[in-house]
């Protein structure tokens, strides 16, 4: 075909433009010329003009003014103009444009044109951009062409029907009979089109699927013909006869044989034959084998055939071609659940693929490797996975880390191995692990009591090398705080002995405290650990005292609060220090994979174990000079719960026995999940001081709503006036205080004041309330704060 000279000249002109600006200039000129030409009446160069416009459009410039020209060209009697017109329609008009409807009539006429090439243009355009209305209009035409035309048109009509069915699902039934008869054609193009059409019909309609199951023997016959036949030059690709048709037939067989014994039986032999005889040296052979494997695995094939299929995938894994390896892993991933043992046989190769250069191959290999981890291969697999973690691309790191944790948790052969593995991950990829890792690891460590010495030595060493990985540092600090005495003792069976002095340990902790790399949470851990060491070391308590007091004026509110409290421990409550800072009990996991307590992470684990003696005053309220906003102290996850749930009196929700909280979860300390077993009555005394008593009773109103009634009474000899009660609750809980019944309490309990507080806890967080009571008595003002952690009357399960 002779080239279009005007078009090529324009292309040359555009390409010779040296800058974007110049190019835009050329294009503008050309477009103006094209527009002028469009307006003129019929001339010989119309197709060239439109072609120029289409080129400009492909470069990215607007060309919508050419849409009507396309419509006109399509209606032209000249083939050259029709050809370019239809091309323009496919490029410029999509079904969302209004102009597309205008060509429906032209298409209809051209579908019955005497010349098959004109018919072909119409079919091609309809199949490319036909809208639902156009499809509905022209479906009968297509059906007619499917039955009575030459092969050239039939094959195109079949694919056009596919498009129609995709756009208008109901029309599928119309084409089913014609499709069935097409299967007896000899022409490969028609056969291919027929198979694609039948596949589409069967995918959409179950009844059609049932009907076409009867065609399985015919399909098998056609396929056999292709596989066994001698060399056919017309359809041969690298020794495979018409691979495109083979692949489509295999796909159709897959759909027909799925979940159907009879159909699957009928194709068993064929599939075995294809699987064994297809030459797999070139991509085209592998394409057919791949489709065969997919079919075998998806129908009800016999076990021998399944093994054959998995072996083919195994061979794919060893193929030099990266594409084939990738395909193999995708397929293996699909069957790793059902044919686990078969896939296990190829574990070695899959693990090797972890070292592949390509990121997509690596990702597939990681998914598969994690799926293949089992109790028997855990040690070797973990070695490989850890090596992978140290060199894997960033986007895969967190996935790899969490996968490793899950695998370690499920199949850990020993506690020491488990702890080692987690430590290894934290050292390599500490920044990419999830937040729950830290409490989980701590819980694991407390459980492995024989390994405390070993763990703390290891962590100490890790801390000395690198303090940038926050999770690792947090765990290390916690352990040093808890087991510092073991560290200082120096001997440990499992690691080489090293002399660690108290100064060394304190140095390490101070480095963490002062480093700019440490996050606020980490520094909190370090400070608490330093404090705990005050009971475990002998010589440097003064140093600890000075560290703690320095942080009493730290800018970070959290650290400041902790420091001040610890200071108070030193000064006023030194007699209690040892008890408060004792070793923590073993943390029991409530359920596998759950974090203990609320979703707030580390701060909860950091609570010092409190031995509660009934009636004993616990740590005092925070000193008055502290920045003390009621709401601030109760805020979300930053809160360090003060280990003083209630001052005096019965502490609701806390275990009755005063011995070590053996078997008692930290959960108990946090928040009274069980209604107080001590006080069966719903009224509970929450405060008693200087003769002023405050009791509380709760009533559950709804799933999330609760009404709390506070009753104040005065048993002193003098009246109390200006009594006010203020309350604060955690952030997500809504609070509404009703008006109190009064504000004075006459002496000797003559009358009481009640205050109703309505709470709504939509997020079902752990409910806590802080109440501030202030009053004046005998001319002086008093103020006090009460923390309420348990609300009797609430069910144990939810708040």
């Amino acid at each position, binding site marked *: 075909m002779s*080239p279009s000279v005007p078009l090529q000249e324009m292309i040359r002109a555009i390409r010779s433009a040296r800058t974007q600006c110049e190019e835009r200039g050329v294009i503008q000129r050309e477009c103006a010329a094209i527009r002028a030409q469009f307006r003129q009446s019929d001339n010989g160069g119309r197709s060239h003009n439109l072609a120029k416009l289409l080129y400009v459009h492909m470069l990215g410039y607007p060309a919508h003014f050419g849409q009507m020209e396309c419509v006109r060209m399509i209606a032209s009697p*000249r083939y050259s103009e029709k050809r370019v017109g239809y091309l323009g329609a496919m490029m410029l008009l999509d079904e969302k444009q209004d102009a597309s409807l205008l060509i429906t009539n032209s298409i209809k006429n051209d579908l019955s044109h005497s010349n098959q090439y004109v018919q072909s243009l119409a079919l091609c355009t309809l199949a490319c951009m036909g809208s639902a209305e156009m499809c509905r209009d022209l479906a009968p035409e297509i059906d007619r062409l499917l039955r009575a035309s030459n092969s050239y048109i039939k094959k195109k009509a079949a694919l056009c029907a596919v498009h129609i069915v995709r756009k208008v699902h109901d029309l599928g039934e119309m084409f089913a009979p014609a499709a069935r008869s097409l299967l007896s054609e000899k022409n490969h193009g028609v056969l*291919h089109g027929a198979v694609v059409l039948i596949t589409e019909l069967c995918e959409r309609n179950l009844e059609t699927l049932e009907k076409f199951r009867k065609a399985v023997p015919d399909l098998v016959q056609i396929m056999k013909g292709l596989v066994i036949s001698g060399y056919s030059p017309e359809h041969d690709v690298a020794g495979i006869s018409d691979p495109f048709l083979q692949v489509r037939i295999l796909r159709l067989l897959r759909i027909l044989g799925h979940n159907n014994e009879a159909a699957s039986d009928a194709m068993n032999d064929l599939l075995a034959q294809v699987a064994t005889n297809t030459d797999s040296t070139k991509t085209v052979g592998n394409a057919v084998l791949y489709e065969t494997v997919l079919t075998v695995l998806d129908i009800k094939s016999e076990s021998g055939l399944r093994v054959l299929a998995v072996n083919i995938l195994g061979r794919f894994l060893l193929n030099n071609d990266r594409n084939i390896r990738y395909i193999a892993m995708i397929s293996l991933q699909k069957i790793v659940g059902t044919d686990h043992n078969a896939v296990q046989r190829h574990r070695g190769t899959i693990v090797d693929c972890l070292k592949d250069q390509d990121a*997509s191959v690596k990702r597939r290999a990681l998914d598969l490797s994690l799926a293949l981890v089992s109790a028997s291969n855990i040690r070797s697999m973990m070695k490989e996975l850890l090596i992978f973690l140290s060199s894997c691309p960033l986007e895969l790191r967190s996935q790899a880390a969490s996968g490793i944790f899950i695998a370690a948790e499920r199949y850990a052969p020993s506690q020491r191995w488990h702890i080692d593995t987690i430590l290894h991950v934290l050292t390599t990829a500490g920044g990419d692990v999830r937040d729950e890792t830290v409490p989980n690891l701590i819980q694991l460590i407390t459980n492995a009591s024989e390994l405390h010495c070993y763990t703390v030595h290891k962590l100490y060493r890790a801390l000395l090398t690198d303090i940038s990985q926050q999770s690792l540092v947090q765990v290390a600090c916690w352990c040093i705080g808890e087991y510092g005495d073991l560290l200082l003792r120096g001997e440990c069976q499992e690691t080489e002995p090293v002399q660690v002095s108290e100064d060394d340990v304190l140095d390490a902790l101070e480095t963490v405290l002062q480093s700019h790399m440490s996050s606020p949470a980490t520094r909190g851990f370090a400070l608490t650990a330093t404090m705990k060491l005050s009971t475990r070391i002998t010589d440097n308590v003064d140093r600890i005292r000075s560290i703690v007091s320095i942080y009493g004026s730290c800018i970070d509110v959290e650290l400041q609060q902790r420091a001040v409290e610890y200071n108070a421990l030193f000064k006023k409550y030194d007699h209690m220090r040892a008890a408060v800072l004792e070793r923590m009990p073993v943390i029991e996991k409530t359920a596998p994979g759950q974090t203990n307590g609320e979703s707030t992470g580390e701060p909860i684990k950091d609570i010092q174990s409190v031995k509660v003696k009934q009636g004993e005053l616990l740590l005092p309220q925070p000193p008055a000079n502290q920045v003390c906003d009621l709401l601030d102290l109760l805020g979300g996850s930053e809160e360090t719960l003060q280990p003083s749930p209630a001052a005096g009196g019965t502490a609701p929700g806390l275990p009755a026995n005063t011995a070590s909280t053996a078997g008692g979860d930290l959960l108990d300390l946090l928040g009274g999940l069980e209604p107080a077993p001590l006080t069966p009555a719903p009224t509970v005394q929450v405060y008693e001081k200087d003769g002023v008593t405050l009791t509380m009773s709760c009533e559950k109103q709804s799933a999330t709503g609760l009404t709390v009634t506070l009753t104040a009474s005065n048993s002193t000899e003098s009246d109390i006036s200006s009594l006010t009660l203020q309350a604060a609750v955690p952030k997500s809980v809504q609070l509404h205080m009703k008006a109190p019944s009064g504000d004075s309490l006459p002496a000797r309990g003559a009358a009481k004041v009640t205050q109703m507080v309505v709470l709504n806890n939509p997020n079902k967080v752990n409910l806590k309330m802080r109440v501030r009571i202030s009053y004046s008595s005998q001319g002086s003002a008093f103020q006090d704060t009460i923390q309420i952690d348990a609300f009797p009357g609430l069910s144990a399960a939810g708040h």
Partner: protein
Amino acid sequence: MQFMLLFSRQGKLRLQKWYVPLSDKERKKISRDLVQTILARKPKMCSFLEWRDLKIVYKRYASLYFCCAVEDQDNELITLEIIHRYVELLDKYFGSVCELDIIFNFEKAYFILDEFLLGGEAQETSKKNVLKAIEQADLLQEVRIFLYHQIHLL
């Protein structure tokens, strides 16, 4: 198949065939993003990738990238074969095709594609038949023009 793109190593589009209805703006955005993603890949990498929710199959021939977006159930390996078949057809038609041929005769590249694929599926699996059909259609175009010129001269 949802669409096929041909682009140079500088990211210039040489051919785009869309089999799904998308607005011009959406097409431009998809082309731009996908071209960038593929150009960023190293030479020895896998020919398949998952991009947004599509399966992409691409292959580089000399200075041109051939890129197809296929559906979930489509066989990626046979899509590579389809790409290869199209390149063979272009090669046979233009006689040792190069990128310039496709630039200066882009409309013919489209015509050839439309004789090989229809509605996103292969319509003719015989190379010979596709080339024969193109030849005949070209002839038809010439004859008409010839006749037209004849009539004009008279």
